[in-house]
């Protein structure tokens, strides 16, 4: 469809943490790309590495290995000064807006800070930009004089979004940005993010554990499990034709939306293994209902099942005809 080079291209991204004597491979060889104006949803359960991926992309934490190309530049090689200058184009919205807003600063100061850091505009223009940003996120510009504690959770998240867009970035990483909000407020914020995307041409990397939210916001989806990407595809492909047994189980575990709805449920046994000592071969094999011998020893390669749909599962390898009965 689009011939434009992707705005963001992540290849072989790894982030390892030392944990005592062992190493936690929080992100283990993750690759994806994201075209301008699109939304990629990263979904998975606790400890799958989705948030670490989001942060490594922005180099808020330093990736251990791999390449992150953004706006044609290799971010992992940029010296500190240039990286800081690039940050203007890539911003982040956090889960807990209260924890990410300085309680002693007024909202106006919070919003002006990114402009000061990047030395954008003169004083009068900055004030105007702050008022504009507040207006864009549906807050009264007069609120600039108030402090974070005077706002409700939904309003604070609006402030968090205003801060992210005030430098007019290209890419916004939203990490569980609506997870702490009540459903009615969550809908407000999701609608706002959508409007801003259209208005400003934003590209989103949207990290969430909530499958319904991810489907709602995303053009394409990446499903993660224990540091690895197990399936990527368009929203349609992943939700209606999931190929990886983990994706299938994850989708089947969503509570029904109506009491009369019948859902074929795949109940997974056991819990998510300790990321410091992940199972051999395919990390999912001990819980997988279709586990084969090869799965216990060999990590499955990513297999393309369509131009946009990739699955890391031995079952999807055409050369392996072995199928469980």
């Amino acid at each position, binding site marked *: 469809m689009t011939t434009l080079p992707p705005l963001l291209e992540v290849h072989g991204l790894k982030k390892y943490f030392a944990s005592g004597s062992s190493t936690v491979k929080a992100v283990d060889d993750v690759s994806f790309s994201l075209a301008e104006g699109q939304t990629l949803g990263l979904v998975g*359960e*606790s400890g799958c590495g989705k948030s670490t991926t989001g942060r490594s992309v922005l180099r808020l934490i330093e990736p251990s290995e791999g390449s992150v190309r953004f706006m044609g530049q290799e971010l992992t090689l940029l010296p500190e000064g240039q990286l800081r200058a690039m940050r203007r184009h890539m911003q982040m919205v956090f889960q807990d807006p209260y924890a990410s807003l300085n309680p002693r600063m007024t909202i106006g100061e919070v919003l002006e800070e990114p402009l000061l850091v990047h030395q954008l505009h003169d004083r009068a223009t900055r004030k105007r930009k702050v008022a504009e940003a507040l207006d864009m996120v549906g807050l009264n510009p007069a609120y600039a004089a108030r402090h974070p504690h005077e706002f*409700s*959770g*939904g*309003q604070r998240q609006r402030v968090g979004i205003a801060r992210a867009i005030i430098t007019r970035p290209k890419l916004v990483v939203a990490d569980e940005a609506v997870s702490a909000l*009540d*459903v*009615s*407020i*969550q*809908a*407000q914020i*999701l*609608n706002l993010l*959508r409007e801003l995307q259209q208005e400003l041409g934003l590209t989103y990397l949207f990290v969430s*554990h909530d*499958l*319904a*939210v991810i*489907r*709602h*916001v*995303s053009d394409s989806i990446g499903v993660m499990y224990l540091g690895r990407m197990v399936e990527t595809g368009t*929203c349609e492909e992943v*939700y209606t034709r999931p190929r990886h047994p983990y994706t299938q*189980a*994850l989708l*089947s*575990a*969503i*509570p*029904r*939306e*109506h*009491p*009369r*709805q019948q859902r074929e*449920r795949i*109940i*997974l046994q056991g*819990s*998510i293994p300790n990321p410091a000592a992940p199972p051999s071969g395919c990390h999912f094999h001990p819980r997988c209902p279709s586990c084969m011998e090869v799965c216990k020893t060999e990590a499955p390669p990513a297999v393309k099942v369509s131009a946009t749909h990739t699955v890391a599962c031995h079952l999807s390898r055409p050369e392996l005809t072995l199928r469980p009965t």
Partner: protein
Amino acid sequence: MLTIENLKIEFLSHGRRVAPVDGVSFSLGQDETVGLLGESGCGKSVTALSILRLFPMASQARLSGAIRFGERDLLQADDATLRGIRGKEIAMIFQEPMTSLNPLHRIGEQLGEMLRIHTSLPRQEIDAKVVAMLERVGLSRAAQLVDEYPHSLSGGMRQRVMIAMALLCQPRLLVCDEPTTALDVTIQAQILDLMRDLKREQKTSILMITHDLGVVAEMCQRVVVMYAGQVVEQSSVEDLFDRPAHPYTHALMRARPALDATPGAPLTAIPGSVPPPGTVTQGCRFAARCARTQDICRQEMPVLEHLGDGHSVRCWYPH
């Protein structure tokens, strides 16, 4: 079995009396699962805590109305009576199992305590019952688990331990406050599945406090919807999903992104936010956020009106 009548709970906040729960009435029958549904600040958790009077002394909570459990009014019960009921006849499961388990005591000890307090069984029998119950809630290695501490368990396992503890004395009523909210979706599916099985087996009634319509659809027969300290709608679960009558319930159903909806289509957001307790003194508490508001809504509080078939709604202009 449980009837709550005109329950009002007041706290002292900054020298002012506020009522996060203001005139709540509903009942729960034998073997029934009732959902208490609402968003932050609606008063659902405070209502749940009041059933066993689990408030810190410092909160100076003032409760009025009645909470009838069988023949007794729990609001009038003395401490000794309450101690006899807590854990034995009514048990509670909280959202975050780690904060309800004592990190310094072994799992087996904590579970055994329930039986030591409420029964006079000999030690061996208590130990055997604890292991059997841990196995029943799907924990493998139960015999070793009793000697371990809570920190060595995953979130899902801890919640299973909580469920085991709650069911040890075979309570008649189980009060669950967001029991799966802190869990991952595949673990939530396991736990809800387990709760359904155990309920069938033990014929326990469940009061399920939740903000999650999905959990309601999975578990409940009837639903009580709360908003700003009041019950705004009450009905069978099918009726609520088919014909939500209160504009708040109606909007809530549409605010959630649906898996079969067109991706990206705007959601029905509810403007504004929940008014803090005591700030709406006149009219319907939802009026300021409601799409159907008329003059009367701002002036007069609607009463909970029966629509038939056990469906009632507090609204001047229901759907």
